[in-house]
């Protein structure tokens, strides 16, 4: 075992960890960032240029686990409820990338803010039976300066004043919006005819050259892929600034296994980790932290880490939320997609609408019909279909295959609305340690126990026909809807969805909940563990509600705020 020292050890190099590192380094603190995955993003040697390992390559990115984790090394397990037994499946469950840059590498970087109401859901809307609706210990006003700061740091491209439901802003978007997807203009027009309010999505993708990185080339390989030209800022820009400060030591292939505590058990002095550059017996190393340890491994791996040591209290892993995804698919005539107008080029999503997040007569009526006090859907993304390998594997084998690919119902002729529906926190939805499945290094696999609340099902049932009508009005020949996780019996559950039986959402939240009271939360309003004074959580684990908006900008703003609190600013 060897040791080294720094002010703060950060576990995880994704958007939360990278932002924390940037703030701490700018304040003159030294950090060591431990990243379990490999480095395909940024040269660790000055001047820290991009490695440029990424291409428009479906096979590497989506079929061969380039961004990790490899499920053969790190299996996860899933069940809907305890009645399912120990597990229903072993394999890939909500796998965000395990690589330098974390989930920011694969994301298409839609970066909306939450709204004021999202932080006061219990006060604004009231309780829901069977769910743990709560207010956050901070409000939108507390976070707004940090939203503004990280939008500047990440170079968010967006358009002010076009979303009537947006929360107030103190600053304009730093970059103008990028090119529109042609079909998004068609579905936006139809949405307006239906009384909806689409707007250009704020994205952390350069619309013009900025921050030493080029503008997006609209290559089409965005969501799920590393950016070949680094037009996505998230999180390479933050990591580069941290590294260029000379105070950041980024260590890929470093698997954090244990917090080292002092004799009181209330203060972390460092982190032990495995050096995964070594095989088959990785050396156990320890890095000592003079001031603090930051957990930023994501809302799946952070609770898994804490649970191994029994830290954080009884609620660690509880209140797991995703976004309950409702996909409304429109199949359009081929003539509506002349060359270059489908999803084969352009950003994954250029338009959103928020109408189902806000209160409305229709949602109230649907809530009443469902016997619920209120309903909230989520942000709705106007997006494209699949890339060809993914599409090809969706069609079964046989003589029809080429005809199906040429007809291309799921790629060229497809346009989709994806509603990222608010998922109400439930104490029974959780991540814990699987009793017998282990990763290749011998640690218990993370296990998801998750079933949606009937609120999510009712909101989805309200949204689906509304969006199908919009698709048909936009010119679709056929429109239909599906959800993830799929609904129905277990047999149908497993067989009915190409997305699988587990939630396909990569928006994982809530597993180390923030609060004002240690009896109902894991971290305080400064994101410190209640039971270990100098350990902070800087990822979406701390979310109190899932909000129905893409979580990245909010987790980054929270990390920015927590890091500033830590350095005393």
């Amino acid at each position, binding site marked *: 075992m060897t040791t080294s020292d720094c002010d703060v050890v950060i576990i995880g190099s994704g958007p939360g960890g990278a932002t924390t590192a940037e703030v701490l380094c700018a304040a003159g603190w030294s950090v060591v960032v431990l990243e379990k995955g490999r480095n395909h993003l940024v040269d660790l040697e000055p001047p820290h240029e991009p490695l*440029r*390992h990424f291409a428009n*390559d*479906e*096979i590497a990115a989506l079929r*061969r686990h380039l961004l990790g984790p*490899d499920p053969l090394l790190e299996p996860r397990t899933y069940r809907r409820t305890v009645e399912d037994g120990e597990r229903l499946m072993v394999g890939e469950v909500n796998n965000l990338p395990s690589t330098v840059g974390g989930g920011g590498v694969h994301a298409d970087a839609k970066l909306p803010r939450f709204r004021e109401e999202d932080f006061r859901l219990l006060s604004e809307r009231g309780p829901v039976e069977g769910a743990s609706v709560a207010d956050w210990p901070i409000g939108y006003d507390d976070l707004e300066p940090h939203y503004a700061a990280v939008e500047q740091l990440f170079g968010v491209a967006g358009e002010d004043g076009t979303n009537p439901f947006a929360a107030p802003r103190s600053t304009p978007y730093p970059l103008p919006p990028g090119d529109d997807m042609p079909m998004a203009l068609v579905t936006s027009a139809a949405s307006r005819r239906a009384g909806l309010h689409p707007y250009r999505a704020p994205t952390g993708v350069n619309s013009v050259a900025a921050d030493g990185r080029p503008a997006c080339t609209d290559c089409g390989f965005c969501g799920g892929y590393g950016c070949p030209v680094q037009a996505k800022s998230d999180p390479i820009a933050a990591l580069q600034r941290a590294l260029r400060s000379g105070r950041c030591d980024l260590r890929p292939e470093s698997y954090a296994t244990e917090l080292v505590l002092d004799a009181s058990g209330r203060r972390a002095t460092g982190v032990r980790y495995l050096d995964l550059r070594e*095989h088959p017996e990785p050396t156990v190393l320890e890095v000592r932290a003079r001031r603090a340890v930051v957990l930023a491994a994501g809302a799946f791996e952070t609770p898994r880490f804490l649970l191994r040591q029994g830290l954080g209290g009884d609620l660690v892993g509880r209140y797991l939320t995703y976004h309950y995804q409702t996909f409304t698919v429109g199949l359009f005539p081929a003539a509506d997609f002349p060359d270059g107008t489908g999803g084969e*080029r352009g950003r994954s999503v250029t338009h959103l609408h928020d109408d189902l997040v806000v209160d409305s007569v229709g949602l109230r009526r649907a809530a009443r019909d469902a016997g619920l006090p209120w309903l909230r859907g989520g942000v709705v993304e106007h997006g494209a279909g699949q890339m060809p390998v993914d599409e090809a594997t969706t069609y079964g084998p*046989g003589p029809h295959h080429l005809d199906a690919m040429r007809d291309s119902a799921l790629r060229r002729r497809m346009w989709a609305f994806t509603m990222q529906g608010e998922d109400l926190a439930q104490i029974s939805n959780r991540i814990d340690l699987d009793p017998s499945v282990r990763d290749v290094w011998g640690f218990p696999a993370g296990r998801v126990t998750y079933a949606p609340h009937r609120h999510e099902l009712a909101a989805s049932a309200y949204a689906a026909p509304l969006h199908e009508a919009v698709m048909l009005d936009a010119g679709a020949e056929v429109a239909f809807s599906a959800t993830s996780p799929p609904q129905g019996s277990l047999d149908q559950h497993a067989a009915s969805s190409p997305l699988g039986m587990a939630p396909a959402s990569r928006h994982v939240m809530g597993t180390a909940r923030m609060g004002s009271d240690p009896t109902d939360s894991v971290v305080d309003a400064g994101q410190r563990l209640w039971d270990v004074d100098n350990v902070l959580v800087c990822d979406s684990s701390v979310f109190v509600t899932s909000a129905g908006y893409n979580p990245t900008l909010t987790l980054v703003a929270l990390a920015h705020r927590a890091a500033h609190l830590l350095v005393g600013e």
Partner: protein
Amino acid sequence: MSPFDPEGRRAVAAALESAVPGSVELGALDYVECLLTAFDHEPPRIWAAPGEWAGPAGDPGPDAPAWLDLGPWERQAWQQRIADWASVYGRVVAGTADEADLRVVHAHACEATYGDPAYGGNRDGAGWARIGFPEPLHPPAGARRR
């Protein structure tokens, strides 16, 4: 060096062609052979590198690697995975493939037909051309490995 003898090649080709008609003409058998022999090369041929086009400005990088290296644990996983697939194709050759085996063959036929030509299939991008999929931008067509 092919992992199959001539009879085995014919059996695997027939299975690939049955899964995705036209795939063998586009290089599906080459794709499978490249995959099963990935560890005959260093770095193993698992992840194609973007190549010289991706070099920094002023550095065309003619010696840029054609394949990305794997970490030691990734090597372990991929050696296991390829060994499993070698068994699948062994059953295909023996005529004893089951439904799960044929799902693997189908997936590989799809990857071979519509994936990056660097992996041995989609010869000259003809798989993309036959479905009207535009040649990807990165790497550009001129720099794409064959």
